[in-house]
Each structure stands twice: as C-alpha cells, then as structure tokens.
C-alpha cells in the first residue's frame, strides 16, 4: 500500500518536475512562460503519434522534445524578438495547442477506431536497489525519463549557481539593461533558455503519453503546466525546492486517486485544489515577488 503510494507519487511528480525545471530556466532569464501547458500537450501528442506510426518509442521521445522546442521557439520569436506581452502570448499558445492536438487527434484516430496506444517505456530496475523495501520501487524501479528528470536537478542547480553561464542567464532576468551593457546578449540568453525549456517541457509531455498513460486523450496535460508554474513559486526558484514541491504535488495527486478508489468521505476535489490554494497562501504569506527574478515578465527592448 505505502509502496504503491510512494511509487505513484514519484511517477506523478516526474512530469511536473520536468516542466517546472523548464519554467525555472525561462523565468531566471526574465521570461514568464504561461505556454508550458501548450508545449506539454504538443509534446505529448507528437510523441505518441510518432511512436505509434514508427513503432519506435525513442523516435517518439525525440518528436515530443521537438514539439516542445517548436512551441517555445514560437514564443521566443514573439516574446523575445517582438517583445510582445508574454502572458497573452503564452495563453494564446495554450489555446492553440489544445486546438491543434484536438483537431489532428480526431482526424487521425477518431475515425479509424483503432486503439491509439503504444507499449510503455519499460521500467529499468537498478539491480538490488529496486528490492529495498518501501522506497525501492519508488526510487529505483522507474523508467529512463524519471531517472533523467531527477538527475537534471543537481546539474541545473550547479549550472545556475556555480557557472558563468548560469550567472549570465540570471543577469538577463534580474537586470537586462545592465546585462546588455556588459555585452551579454539578453535576446540570445532568453532564446537559449526557451529552447532548453522546450526540451524539458516536450520531454514532460512525452512522458505523459509514452510512460504514464500509454495513450493520448484531448487535454491530457490536465493543468500540469500550470501546476509547474505553481511549483516554481513554491520551490522558491531553487531546483532543490522545485523537487520537493513537485513531490508534494505528486503526492497530492496520488492521494486523490487513492481516495477516489477507496470512496472515503473526504472530497477528492480538496486534494486537487490544494496545490493551487497552497501556492496562493505561500505567495500571500511571503509577499509575491520576493524571490522572483526582478525583470520577470518584462519584455526587453533595447
């Protein structure tokens, strides 16, 4: 029971963590990306459709990543080069992604009646570690993407806080004018951040269809992109904090499924609303902008 709950928590936390790490990179560079949900959805659809037609899960993964990058590149053109309102552009991409994936999904798979499923990405148990009681299956009997997501955390933490490149990226988000004056190329940095984030968000979408659901339904991302937005805030713009917040949200989701199955008196909607409410309470408690990059959401025009 506990073993299954922990295992489910980690699988629920993984797509959120990936998307949140992507959002973190973008926000550190000064862009507020509301379009994560759309990138995730496109990644999810592209991954499954490609895997289904080609029969290769690996090709599917790559297609998912490519779709995430494509959506973020669109945002980059608008938000970085044309300096438009980032919030509106991101929202438009979310709506567009919902429409495009829906139209193609129904056109390609609505009529055939064939099951739109693929073989899931297989779990890779890490030898004897997977046999550890209680935590073993959760931590060491997962698929490749789960390991990758958690491996990225220390790497990203190191890049952001210890390398020159990470410093430059944060400079673009804290004070783009100064960064530009130092010749850092704010536009270039923000483009890099959006592309890197597209990779992670696309991967997160691919995980949903190739490793978690093994199929696609319209709107499969189900608000996870917005949860990622909340996770970045709750995690105080720190990769380790993001990990903790992702696991917390993953646990809330796992608990909600468990409660629905058990049919308890506690309304499951409470657990679904909790992450969002909690984010608001934390924001209200500490004062919203305290830890956010100073220039977050401001288009930079030279």
């Amino acid at each position, binding site marked *: 029971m506990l073993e299954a709950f922990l295992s489910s928590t980690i699988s629920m936390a993984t797509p959120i963590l990936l998307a949140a790490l992507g959002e973190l990179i973008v926000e550190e560079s000064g862009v507020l990306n509301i379009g994560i949900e759309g990138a995730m959805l496109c990644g999810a659809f592209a991954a499954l459709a490609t895997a289904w037609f080609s029969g290769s899960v690996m090709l599917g993964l790559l297609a998912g990543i490519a779709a995430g990058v494509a959506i973020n590149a669109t945002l980059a053109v608008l938000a970085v080069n*044309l300096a438009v309102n980032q*919030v509106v552009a991101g929202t438009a991409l979310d709506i567009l992604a919902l*429409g495009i994936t*829906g139209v193609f999904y129904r056109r390609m798979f609505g009529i055939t009646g064939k099951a739109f499923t693929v073989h899931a990405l297989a779990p890779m148990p890490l030898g004897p570690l997977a046999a550890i009681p209680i935590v073993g299956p959760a931590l060491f009997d997962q698929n490749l993407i789960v390991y990758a997501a958690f491996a990225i955390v220390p790497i990203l933490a190191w890049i952001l806080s210890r390398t020159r490149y990470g410093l430059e990226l944060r400079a673009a988000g804290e004070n783009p004018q100064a960064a530009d004056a130092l010749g850092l190329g704010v536009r270039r940095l923000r483009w890099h951040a959006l592309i890197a984030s597209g990779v992670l968000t696309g991967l997160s979408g691919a995980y949903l269809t190739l490793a978690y659901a093994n199929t696609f339904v319209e709107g499969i991302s189900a608000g996870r992109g917005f949860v990622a937005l909340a996770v970045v805030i709750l995690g105080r713009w720190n990769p380790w904090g993001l990990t903790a917040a992702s696991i917390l949200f993953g646990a809330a989701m796992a608990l909600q499924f468990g409660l629905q199955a058990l049919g308890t008196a506690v309304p499951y909607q409470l657990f*679904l609303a909790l992450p969002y*409410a909690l984010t*608001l309470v934390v924001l209200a408690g500490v*004062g*919203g902008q305290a830890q956010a990059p100073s220039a977050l959401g401001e288009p930079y025009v030279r």
Partner: protein
Amino acid sequence: MLASLLKPIAALAIAAALISGVLLALGASPIGVFSALAIGAFGNWLAFTDTCVKATPLIFTGLAVALSFQGAMWNIGADGQLTIGALLAGAIGPYLGGLPHPIAIAVILAAGAIGGAAWGGICGWLRARRDVNEVISTIMLNFVAVQMLSWAVHGPLMEASRSYPASTPIAAGAQLRLFFEPSRLNSGMILAVALAIASSALLFRTGIGFEIRAAGINRRASAFFGIPIARLAVLVMALSGALAGLGGAVQISAITHRLYEKISPGWGYEAIAVALLARLNPIGLLCTALLFGALDNGSQAMQRAEGVSPVLVQVIQGMVILILLAFDTTAFSRLTGAISLRRGAGTSAPELPPAAGASDA
C-alpha cells in the same frame, strides 16, 4: 477609424490563410469548412439566435478582460470568476421561488456578480497589498474554482435523486424568460450589450476610467501623479470579476437552469481573444464576441459537413491572438510606420499597456 479596423481585419485574413494551410494538411477543403461554419452560424433564424446565445457569455468575459487589461491588470481568471458566479447563482436559485419574478432575477444576478467580484477582488487585493502577480493568482483561482464547482455538484448541491452530478434546478421565477421560443434568445444578451455601453462610458467618460487607463499605460507615473494605484487594482479586479460572474449567473438563469461539473468550456480564455481582437474596446467587443460565438455555433455544422473537429475553433482563436500580438509590437509598427508616410507616427498610443506583469517596485 478605418485604419484602426485595418489591423484586426488583416490579422483575421492571415489567420484564415494559416488555418487553410492546416485544413489542407488535414485533407479537408478550406472553402467547404468556412462555408459550413458560416451556414451553421447564420444560415437561418434559429442558427443566428443560437449564435447570439453563444456570444453572450463571451461578451461578459470579454468585458471582464478588456476592463482589466486596460488597467494593465492581467486577469487570466475570468473563467474562474464566471464559475464562482454561476456557483453562487446556482446555489441560491432553487430558494427564490417565493419572490416576485423581477426580484428573483435581481437576486440571482447579484449573487453571480458578488461571487465573481469576490473571486477577482482577492487577486486585486493580493496584488495591491502582498505584491502577488495577478497572472499567477488568477490562474491558481481558476483551478480552485473548477474543483469547488465539481465538489458542489457531487456533494452539497447535488440534485435530490443523486443520480447525476448536477444541482437542483433553480426556481422558475429566477429564470430569465426566452423571447422567441424555440430560440433560446433571452434578455441576458440585452444586459450584456447594456454593460458593454456602460463599460465604455466608465472607461472613456469618467475620472475612474481615466485613472484605470493611465495606470495601464504607466503605473509608476500614475502613482506619482496621485492616482491611488493600490485601491484601483482592487477595484478593477473586483469590477472585472463581477462582469464575468454576471455572465455565469446569466448562463444559469437563462440557459442551463442548474449547475453542471464544467459550466464553462473555456469562455474566460476565449475572452482574451475576443477582447484583444476588439483592441480592448467594449463596444467593438460586441462584434468580436458575435464572431467567436458564430465560430462556436458553426463548428457543429462544420463537423457534420466536413468531418473537421469543432476544436478547430480553438486553433483559430489561438492564431488570431498570436497574429494580432505580432502586429502590435513596436518592431512591427516601426516597420509599417516607415511605409505609411510616417503619418500619425507619434500619435498612436500603445495598443496594449506595456507594463506586462512588471512589478511596481
């Protein structure tokens, strides 16, 4: 005036071209799809009235978005505000049987407005007093609202037979009358139009409206000139939420008569396209809401005739917003400014308030 219409029309034309590309990729005929859309939306009296009915919630949420965006308060939460407005209206509706019809209507609509105003006002207050970005807070409250509604129709408000997740129907006296049955045309549409006129008057003819627009263009400068920025943030968000909440109450009172799990198919997000396409102008918004209502309505006929999913409408919405945004940028106006003999180069105010998501500090 003509020039101000040029950009939205050009944006629509480019969107139509891009969507034709998507349709060709799908193996559908663009002409067939667009004509099926048009016939489905305007082909006969019943189709036309249903387009008006579909446009009504978009007018309410579109006004909510236009009002807040004019003040550079990025309210992405019209969906949640509409949901809470509907929730309160649907909760109070069954108990209004003893009241005279006009009073019952007033009460149920007021419940919707109050619910929406509270939901939006929270975000305004958080912005003013706790410096919480309203983009984040409104999005978070959208999700909370959806779960609250789901809980209500599965739990305390569930109908007596408890067989279906829907609430008890509202009292007959609290239902907005339909004008020309079988058409579902109702006075909600008239209220929406009246509120559009009122919003326009508020924004462009009153001191408060001037302050809202001034804060939208430059918050820091407005504060310097003594405009009470914090109070204005709460007011704008509460007003904006009230408009969206009213839309929810009208939907309950005139159309559904009870609550369901998903009362809004995304009107609050669609409203962003509606408002932007109308350049945040409340009167112009009546046209764009009708356009998007027509798309929604025509999409069913399009599916029957051409086998293209109605979600194509969302592709159209997304593309229209993105193309309009691209048109609105300084880079683009510099480009067109050079071509168009520089006429009015310095006079054209920024189409969108520039302080997007920026903090006041």
